């Protein structure tokens, strides 16, 4: 029997508010110099006091509602005390025994079909600052601290240990990301906007916590590494130690981080500078936008998308929005071309779907719909367009690319000419065909296709070639 893997996640997401959680500082700091988005409050200067950002609470409530959580009638903020240079006040304002919301769930694509993952709790907290080590953390001469990030609102979403494989963990994160994006409370592309702590154990063994994984792919990688490591430990008859490990993204491994200095007693107590929050009634007034599951069903009924396509298209809000902006009269064609071609090409180039002008894509779909070009040419046009975007060149319309490269589907006469040439140039293949070798026909079709540079309609070409060969026999 396979070892049962048990995984639970703690997901920290930055909420995309305009100002910080406890002060008015602008959260859009990523392109600015260190310590420019700061004030006495987020620097933790003596005497400063936190002032709660209502929008952050609203965003967190939206998430709680979308994840089917119960919002507590009263929640409160607590101080988590620990010493670290980038922690401005030497405590983080977070929520401890009275979080914002509890007992929710989210549906994911599990290893054996759709699966409900329980959400333990959701709470609000502030992000600490950031240490910038000059050189390595161990040997560097000094460390600088940047407080631009200090006070950015975070929500921590804690799941029950309901996940059974690294893949399920990855799927949960994707679904979570999509949900937060649909709510418009999260910018998944902002650097450092998501950090995950993962708890993983093999049933019957100790639990290991992997801290601070900062990418979606990293979570799956770290967990895969840990599954293998823990299984090997058990196979050798040893005991998996209960410990905290760090994931080294660059090497794809987890390392033990046992150190006296990290053994913390956080001495939580209620933050005396903030009043308890009573927001349960507020949640009823919040109207959620359409969420991924609902949108997926609508794509199937309204546009006739295949289930797999509908899942892919609604997996991210931007993709779904893009689809709806180009679906027009050809939703079937649009869903195929986005799900089966465009996303793969974008992924290959590490590009975002935002960068593709919908009008250009619509133009491409129109040429495909009227059968003015072949699918093969369609892919060529798409690639040419994406390369231009990626290289920051002026973007040609598909119509212009067709004209420039001469990709319009060839007419019957032109094909007939090419067929004549190919028959003349490949006597052996023609002989093989007459001798009954079926592969020879494929070879000849390929030769004509090559001459047409993919502009010939494969079905039409096949018919014409067979009738010509039959005539000449």
């Amino acid at each position, binding site marked *: 029997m396979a070892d049962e893997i048990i995984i639970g996640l703690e997901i920290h997401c930055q909420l995309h508010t305009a100002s910080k959680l406890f002060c008015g500082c602008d959260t859009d700091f990523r392109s600015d110099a260190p310590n420019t988005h700061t004030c006495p409050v987020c620097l933790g200067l003596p*005497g400063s006091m936190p*002032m*709660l950002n209502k929008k952050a609470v609203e965003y967190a409530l939206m998430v709680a509602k979308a994840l089917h959580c119960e919002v507590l009638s009263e929640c409160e903020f607590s101080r988590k005390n620990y010493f670290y240079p980038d922690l401005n006040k*030497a405590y983080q304002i977070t929520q401890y025994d009275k979080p914002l919301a509890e007992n929710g769930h989210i549906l994911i694509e599990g290893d054996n079909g759709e699966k409900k993952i329980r959400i333990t709790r959701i709470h609000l907290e502030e992000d600490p600052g950031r240490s910038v080590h000059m050189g390595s953390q161990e040997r560097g001469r000094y460390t600088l601290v940047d407080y631009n990030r200090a006070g950015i609102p975070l929500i921590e979403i804690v799941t029950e240990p309901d996940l059974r494989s690294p893949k399920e963990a990855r799927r949960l994160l994707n679904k979570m990301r999509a949900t937060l994006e649909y709510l418009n409370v999260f910018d998944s592309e902002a650097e450092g906007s998501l950090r995950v702590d993962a708890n993983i154990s093999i049933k019957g063994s100790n639990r290991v916590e992997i801290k601070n994984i900062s990418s979606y792919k990293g979570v799956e990688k770290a967990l895969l590494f840990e599954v293998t490591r823990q299984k090997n430990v058990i196979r050798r008859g040893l005991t998996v130690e209960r410990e905290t490990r760090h994931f080294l993204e660059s090497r794809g491994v987890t390392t033990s981080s046992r150190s006296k200095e990290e053994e913390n007693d956080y001495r939580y107590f209620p933050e005396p500078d903030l009043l308890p929050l009573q927001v349960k009634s507020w949640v009823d007034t919040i109207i959620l936008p359409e969420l991924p599951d609902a949108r997926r069903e609508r794509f199937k009924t309204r546009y006739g998308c295949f289930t797999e396509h509908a899942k892919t298209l609604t997996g991210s809000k931007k993709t779904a929005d893009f689809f709806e902006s180009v679906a027009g009269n050809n939703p079937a064609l649009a869903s195929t071309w986005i799900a089966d071609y465009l996303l793969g090409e974008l992924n290959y180039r590490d590009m975002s779907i935002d960068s593709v002008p919908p009008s250009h894509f619509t133009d491409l779909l129109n040429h495909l719909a009227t059968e003015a070009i072949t699918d093969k040419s369609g892919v060529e046009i798409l690639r040419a367009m994406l390369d231009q975007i990626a290289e920051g060149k002026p973007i040609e319309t598909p119509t212009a690319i067709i004209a420039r490269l001469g990709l319009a589907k060839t007419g019957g006469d032109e094909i007939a000419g090419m067929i004549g040439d190919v028959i003349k140039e490949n006597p052996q293949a023609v002989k093989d065909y007459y001798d009954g070798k079926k592969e020879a026909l494929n070879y000849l079709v390929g030769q004509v296709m090559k001459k047409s540079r993919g502009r010939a309609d494969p079905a039409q070409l096949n018919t014409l070639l067979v009738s010509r060969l039959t005539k000449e026999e």
Partner: protein
Amino acid sequence: MGSMTFHPEDPYHAFITTVRDPEYTEGPLSGVPVAIKDNISTSGIETTCGSAILRGYIPPYDAHVITLLRRAGAAIVGKTNMDEFGMGTTTESSAFGPTTNPNDSSRVPGGSSGGSAAAVAAGMVPYALGSDTGGSIRCPASFCGIVGLKPSYGRVSRFGLIAYANSLEQIGPMARDVSGVSRIFSVIAGHDPRDATSADRPYNHEPDSDVMDGLKIGIPDEYFGEGVDPAVRETVTGALDICSSMGAELIPCRMPSMQYSLAAYYVICTSEASSNLARFDGIRYGPAVNTKKRWHDAFSDYRHDHFGKEVRRRIMLGTFALSEGYYGRYYQKAQAARRMVREDFRRILTQVDIIAGPTMPTIAYRLGEKTKDPLQMYLADILTVPANLAGVPAISVPCGMIEKMPVGFQIMGSNFHEEAIIDAAYAFEQEMKHGR
């Protein structure tokens, strides 16, 4: 618009910092000098909390009360000495040396707002701001023979007050008489959105001396019990007799929660302090930390070297009280006791208008008299901490002398009813001044 000159002799060492040529603007307090306790942030003026760890720290912003005082035209003339971070009853724990009592310079001025009280008592300034976490305005007011008000929790913004124990403390006015306290209070009270615990309760009141007749004054037995010096007891009983002769009704009452209040107070204030003071690590402000050491060594050495003994003692007590496994036994129990104190006040104040008793169990100590035994020092707060635990307003007003040293009469009231205790204190003060 104008500026004044302020460089007085300071024989009692009331000030840590003086502003030689303070500027001021138009307003009801135009050109009036006000001294500020050194734990209230003043933009551009060094603010040390009486600690070596903040030496050289110049805040880039004004506390809300400073903004309000400046707007009213007051001249901020200096920062007054205090027990380090407010942790003391004598102003002897200041890293800048003790302040002495203007009534007798061999004695302490009380604390922790001892510098503010001495500056007012010596006539250096008419008004000062103090802060009161467990009696730090009322104790020095009592010892120096001036008037000091600890407002209701939330009536004055704490934004910019360098926190010692957030859930207990308030900034409040100190002056030679009740009118002065009332005058400054009207400037600093009111809502501030930057302090989430601040209430929208401004104060616009002229003290009224015609309130004693028919006033019901609760006299808790516990305020006249063991530990209260018999001479103090006698002087305050005399003050109550005056009230009675003016028509007030004296109603004996009980405050059983008093037996827990001191312990609860010290658990809560040290717990909060251990967290509040954790940020002083020499990185962002104050004297620089030694960067040659490893981080954990550097900051623990730094804190050992720059905090005084009493501060370190309270940080360790608070750290212990909040530790895993002890939280329920100490912090949570202290909160339960606090609710009992609050409930006692609520119950008594449905039967009486105000509560009265001595402010301090004794007159001012001699310098060095209490520093050897911290527990003796803590016991001196027994009569002042209940108001902080309950969040109610309390005022100390002089009511007589023992051995040529002043005695303070404490009046406490219902939440946000400063008007009532100010009127009672004013009526009493006027009677003391003119009536006899």
